[in-house]
């Protein structure tokens, strides 16, 4: 995508650009600082000794800097194992949610069938019940299926429309697309499937990207699901391992912060890469790929 910022030739171009957009930069820096504060504090705490984290008045730059917190985390919990477990669960679950959400949303958005709107309301209604009251019956269900202490309860529901809100989101996006191309394709004899794959999906990359990012984050940081269904420590995902630094009476904050940084880094990297691919920040016509 060609943007105006790529084609500076003369200094006066740059001056004109900043002259027009100075306020944007100002706002970005202002809000950006506010947004960065949590991460900076997290990084800072992860390099402090335990007592120093809560020192009053608070210090932003640790003194001394303890890199050893990170190696200690590796000694204390099987981090590599946790990374692997989290990766497996998250990747498979995200894939399932994106794919099944795309299918189901397409059905609700572009196809007409009796009871469609009623079923759509049922879809939304299913997320209105807090999970605490369905937890025990769900647990019993998974016990009957003999899926306890495995990744299956965390992955399989995702492949069967398990992300109702993602379906809702994609349905909204699919409904924004005009039907011109669809109708043209239909006259040419295209099937519904071909319209789905060839027309609707390619125009929905930003929306699919957003669903993928959200789903990835939700599964990567999910504590309660793995907590309830996993028993063996060698199957623990990262959020579970993080909680092992918190006992009922005290918490080893410096290690917890270091482990949190290590847990957050894959997300940050992935997000940075993904959003550049899916969300380009330049408006383009709806008909171009």
């Amino acid at each position, binding site marked *: 995508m060609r*943007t105006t*910022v790529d084609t500076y030739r003369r200094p006066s171009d740059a001056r004109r650009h900043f002259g027009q*957009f100075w306020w*944007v930069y100002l706002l*970005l820096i202002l*809000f*950006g600082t*506010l947004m960065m504060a*949590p*991460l900076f504090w*997290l990084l800072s705490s992860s390099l402090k000794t335990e007592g120093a984290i809560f020192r009053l008045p*608070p210090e932003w730059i640790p003194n001394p800097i303890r890199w050893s917190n990170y190696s200690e985390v590796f000694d204390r919990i099987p981090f590599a194992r946790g990374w692997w477990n989290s990766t497996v669960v998250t990747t498979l679950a995200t894939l399932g949610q994106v794919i099944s959400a795309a*299918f189901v949303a*397409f*059905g609700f958005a*572009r196809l*007409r*069938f009796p009871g469609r709107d009623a*079923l759509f309301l*049922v879809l939304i209604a*299913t*997320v*209105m*019940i*807090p999970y*605490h*009251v369905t937890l025990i*019956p769900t647990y019993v*269900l998974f016990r009957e299926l003999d899926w306890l202490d495995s990744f299956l309860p965390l992955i399989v529901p995702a*492949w*069967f*429309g*398990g992300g109702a809100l993602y379906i*809702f989101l994609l349905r909204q*996006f699919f*409904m*924004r697309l*005009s*039907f011109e191309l669809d109708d043209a394709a239909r006259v040419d*004899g295209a099937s*519904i499937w071909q319209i*789905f794959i060839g027309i609707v999906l390619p125009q929905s990359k*930003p929306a699919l990207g957003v669903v993928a*990012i959200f789903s990835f*984050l939700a599964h990567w*940081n999910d504590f309660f699901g793995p907590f309830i269904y996993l028993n063996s420590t060698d199957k623990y995902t990262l959020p579970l391992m993080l909680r092992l630094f918190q006992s009922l009476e005290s918490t080893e904050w410096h290690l917890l*912060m270091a482990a*949190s940084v290590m847990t957050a880094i894959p*997300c*940050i990297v992935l*997000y*940075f890469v993904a*959003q550049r691919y899916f969300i*380009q*920040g330049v*408006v*383009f*016509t*709806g*008909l171009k790929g």
Partner: protein
Amino acid sequence: MATASKTLVQGLTTTKPPFLNHRRREAIGGYLFILPWIIGVVVFLLGPIAASFYFSLTNYQVVKAPEWAGLANYRRLLNDDLFWQALKVTTIYVAISVPLGLVLSFLVALLMNQRVKGIGFWRTIFYLPNLIPLVAGTMLWLWMFNPQFGLINGFLARIGIDGPLWLQSQQWALPSLIIMNLWGVGGATLIYLAGLQGIPTDLYDAVAVDGGGAWAKLWTITIPQMTPVIFYNLVLGLIAGFQVFAQPLILTGGGPRYSTLFVVLYLYQNAFANFRMGYASAIAWALFLIILVLTLIIFKFSNAWVYYEGDTRKR
């Protein structure tokens, strides 16, 4: 289609008009496409949801079998002052934070959609609070809101204001949670950004040709085109807002003096700490009803203000 035209050309009539055949095929296709979800609901959701409704009609102490109690839980609900307090807290929270979040995230999305250098970097910065594990983030907030040494009161002191007790004060605990929630605007912003992508540039060009400036473009093109996405964020904000649970659990435990007792927190306490799973289920279903009614109202009114580009043919 090809079959239909063939028969017409040959002058033969078919007993079934091709028009019905197409409709039927589309309907079958529709059911097929949503089949994964149907299976998921039947297998994973139907049983547990029905069970939770059954529990609401029992005294269920979790570690003992449920005992039938009829409508006793629901009757108790009507007289329970803690439940109404929780409902009040949750409603105030939703009424303030949802519109605030909606507007703020929209503005931020517009900001991020500008053609500035390194916009990818900025977009990552704004999403950072959502990328940090919850347990680390909440510690930061406890620290920032500390009345004596926290950053927020420190900043207020520098401009001459004596900051309140924040999370320890009955008046300020809920506002603290609302402020905290604003840090998570990155999620809604992302959705808006994705939505801004799909607006055809020729629409903006048309406005420019007619002499319209930035405001005209915003009001006549951007916002109407974005209504499906705004609608989504509104419904999502409502549903999520009513089910807020983790932050009050970690930060305040519902206090001080129940000023941050959210409905789902109260439900959770009843379910697992107080051995009143039946009552908790009744609370869940009452909450469900409230959210459902509000959502239906929003859906009903959506026809008036939500515009779908793909809405050009009879639905």
